[in-house]
């Protein structure tokens, strides 16, 4: 076995070690923390590239590219718990992506967090996150994956609440932790169920892993009492974990709030890597997800994959709709992330691993680019996040503007030159050819339109027109001076340590798409172990061209609409109503509040409980009380009558009864003497009685 496969564990362990050392190191040294984190990440990156190259070489030499390394962790009873890691194209691609994007974001963070007091803590958490995420990627065992998954959740919590002195950030951290926990509990149930059914948690184990043929076919033959196939049940439970982590509807609510964390965190965790972990999980257990009872050659879609598709496509549309009406620069991107994650899920559902993963990879690059650009804007505007108070930054921050624009066009899927176009187009194409329903396609297409629209809205708001920041700062000059890090309120270009990662990422956002064009689907075939060749004819087959054209038209339409509403004439002041919002203010407000989802979640249960208590209150007050009153007055008459009899005849008897009850109570309470030895005596007596009973029974 190759060295890199045996020592793949080094990839996640290096950042974890860096985190551990910087957590334990006594001296507060920024240089130490940053260099440890970046150094370990670079090493991991190099190892990942090596692993990638190894997979490539294997593929070129025609060997199976899936390699696993399993070992026994510990024994309980007669069972062994095995753990392990694996290297296959999916792992290799994800490794390179995560380490590369992570490395860039680490470098960017050096500039972004420069003025923060808890610089060391930040890098410690960040490195721990990177290690755990890489652990998720390489693990060949659902349990190991789950452990890393939970560490990822923990670091996400820690980093969202990084500025925990801000109550909003602390609450957002808690919310993220708890909401993802719902998904994770179901995921864990799935794991337990799976272990009970198949007896292993290894993905691949030379034919004994649960993703391999024998286990899957075994799972397919089992059915639960409700008639669902066990495989489907487990797959759905695992998908619940992915829903939580990837912010799919209805567990998406934590993701926008997570933007309270530092922007590099939003870029790394809540755009590029962690939220993609859900998608990755679905891709990893794809054999289980896609398992269906039908014949192998009949193209059918399993129940689980249908669920994935529907949830994904709905989320895609849903996120895009909400993003239209947001004002916070990071929130727009957050809802966009939700929407794009929906796309990925949809891609997985309709087109398989390669389709979803391709979008995952391209999205990771351009979305982290966008986030970092947003971070640069925020950094330049001294912490301002409201797009209404920006504007005109295009001239002041040229590098940021250009790179941001590239990222935005990639996200919108601007035809031909941007990576988002190719990946999104492939999803749409797959959705178009889906044999179950056409609805996902239309939902996705509409979402694409909206994407183009809200992104152009954002860009026009932020970069076009005149600066609305100055007037704001003029009013609060004093406040700005104290709150700003630099003491000057005017927007400025960010330092090179921040812009260089932006440029590198924008290059990737441009170029990465060409790895997976229909004409040369290298990426897809790499994931699927298929040969690849250049074939321009692929554009013309399978309805590809109409889909491409229509999506181009949609994107252009969206951009045009954006320009029409927001770019045509510059926005004058921060208080001016939204141009688009003027069309239908009420809907716009609803969208601005994310369709009141938080409110709905908060209110449904409260409302229900309140309603129930109201009803009982009413019943109590009128029905029961009225009845009781009536009875009371009736009885009262009798009572007066009885009083005479009572005092003389009944009372003495009743007193006697009361006395008896209280005396017996006292007797009983003597048992409860508060003296343990008394209790012990009773236990010993019981032991005697039971032993005699058992012996007596045995005799008979």
């Amino acid at each position, binding site marked *: 076995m190759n060295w890199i496969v045996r020592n793949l564990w080094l990839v996640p362990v290096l950042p974890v070690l860096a985190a551990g050392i910087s957590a334990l190191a006594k001296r507060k040294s920024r240089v130490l923390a940053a260099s440890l984190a970046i150094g370990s990440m670079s090493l991991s990156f190099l190892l990942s590239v090596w692993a990638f190259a190894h997979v490539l070489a294997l593929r070129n030499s025609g060997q199976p590219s899936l390699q696993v390394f399993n070992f026994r962790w*510990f*024994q309980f*009873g*007669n069972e062994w718990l095995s753990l392990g890691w694996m290297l296959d194209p999916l792992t290799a691609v994800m490794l390179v992506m995560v380490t590369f994007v992570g490395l860039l974001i680490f470098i960017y963070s050096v500039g972004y967090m420069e003025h923060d007091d808890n610089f060391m803590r930040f890098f410690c958490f960040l490195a721990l996150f990177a290690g755990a995420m890489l652990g998720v990627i390489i693990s060949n065992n659902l349990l190991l994956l789950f452990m890393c998954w939970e560490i990822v959740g923990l670091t996400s919590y820690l980093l969202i609440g990084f500025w925990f002195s801000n109550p909003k950030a602390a609450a957002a951290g808690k919310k993220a932790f708890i909401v993802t926990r719902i998904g994770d509990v179901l995921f864990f149930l799935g794991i337990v169920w799976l272990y009970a059914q198949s007896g292993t948690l290894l993905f691949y184990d030379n034919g004994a892993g649960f993703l391999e043929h024998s286990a899957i076919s075994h799972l397919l033959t089992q059915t639960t009492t409700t008639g669902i196939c066990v495989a489907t049940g487990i797959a759905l439970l695992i998908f619940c974990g992915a829903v939580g982590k990837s912010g799919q509807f209805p567990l998406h609510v934590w993701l926008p709030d997570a933007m309270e964390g530092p922007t590099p965190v939003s870029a790394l965790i809540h755009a590029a890597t962690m939220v993609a972990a859900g998608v990755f999980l679905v891709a990893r257990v794809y054999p289980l997800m896609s398992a269906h009872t039908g014949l192998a050659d009949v193209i059918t879609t399993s129940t689980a994959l249908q669920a994935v598709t529907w949830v994904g496509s709905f989320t895609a549309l849903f996120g895009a709709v909400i993003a239209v009406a947001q004002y916070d620069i990071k929130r727009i991107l957050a809802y966009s992330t939700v929407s794009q994650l929906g796309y990925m899920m949809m891609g997985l559902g309709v087109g398989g691993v390669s389709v979803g993963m391709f979008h995952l990879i391209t999205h990771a690059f351009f979305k982290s680019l966008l986030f970092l650009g947003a971070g640069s804007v925020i950094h330049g505007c001294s912490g301002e996040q409201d797009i209404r108070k920006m504007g005109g930054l295009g001239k002041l921050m040229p590098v940021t503007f250009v790179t941001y624009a590239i990222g935005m066009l990639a996200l919108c899927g601007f035809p031909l030159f941007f990576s988002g176009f190719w990946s999104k187009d492939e999803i749409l194409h797959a959705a178009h050819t889906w044999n179950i329903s056409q609805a996902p396609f239309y939902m996705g297409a509409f979402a694409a339109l909206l994407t183009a629209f809200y992104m152009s809205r954002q860009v026009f708001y932020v970069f076009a027109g005149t600066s609305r920041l100055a007037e704001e700062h003029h009013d609060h000059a004093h406040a700005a001076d104290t709150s700003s890090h630099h003491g000057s309120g005017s927007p400025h270009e960010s330092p090179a340590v921040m812009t260089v990662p932006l440029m590198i990422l924008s290059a990737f956002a441009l170029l990465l798409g060409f790895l997976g064009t229909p004409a040369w689907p290298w990426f897809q075939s790499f994931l699927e172990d298929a040969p690849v060749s250049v074939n321009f004819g692929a554009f013309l087959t399978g309805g590809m061209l109409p889909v491409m054209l229509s999506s181009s038209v949609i994107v252009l339409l969206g951009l045009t609409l954006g320009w029409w509403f927001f770019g045509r004439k510059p926005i004058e002041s921060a208080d001016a109503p939204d141009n688009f919002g003027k069309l239908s203010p009420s809907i716009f407000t609803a969208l601005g509040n994310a369709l009141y989802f938080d409110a709905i979640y908060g209110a449904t249960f409260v409302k229900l409980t309140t309603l129930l208590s109201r009803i009982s209150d009413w019943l109590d007050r009128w029905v029961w009380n009225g009845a009781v009153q009536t009875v009371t007055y009736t009885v009262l008459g009798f009572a007066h009558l009885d009083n005479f009899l009572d005092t003389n005849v009944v009372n003495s008897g009743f007193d006697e009864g009361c006395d008896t009850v209280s005396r017996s109570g006292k007797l009983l309470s003597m048992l409860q003497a508060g003296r343990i030895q008394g209790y012990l005596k009773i236990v*010993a007596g019981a*032991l005697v009685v039971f032993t005699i009973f058992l012996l007596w029974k045995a005799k008979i």
Partner: protein
Amino acid sequence: MTISFFIIAAITIVGTAAAMSLKNLVHCVLSLTLGLVGLALLFLLLGAQFVGFTQILVYVGAVAILAVFAIMMTRSAEPMTNLPPASFRLSGVLIAATVFAVLAWAISSATRSLPSQSSQPEVSVNQIGVALMHQFVLPLEVIGVLLTAALVGAAILAMDETGASR
């Protein structure tokens, strides 16, 4: 049923009985130690060397000392003057005697079905170690966690509530 068994059994019973009946608490603990050493010797007699030595190490070396410390720190080394009423003691002894009678009855009624003489099992510490590290590793871990928790818990419980300055 060898002579040594009866001698050791007598030592054990005398030690434990003294531990439960002497007036002076320190004497109680010391005779308890005698009884526990007797028990350890019984373990050795049964061929469980490791368990026997562990018994001495844990009970004589740790638990007895701990009890002695507790006695010293609660100032109860002086012989007790106010004994519980005779009826209380009598009832306790009676219950214990009943328990013994019932257990003895059970054992004697089962004595025919009990396995009789078998060869001394050869067990080395090595085998115990292997078993602990493989078959029983999970209980071992759990016990480790339990001991740690007990250590921390005991330290916290015994810590002076007011002594925050420490």
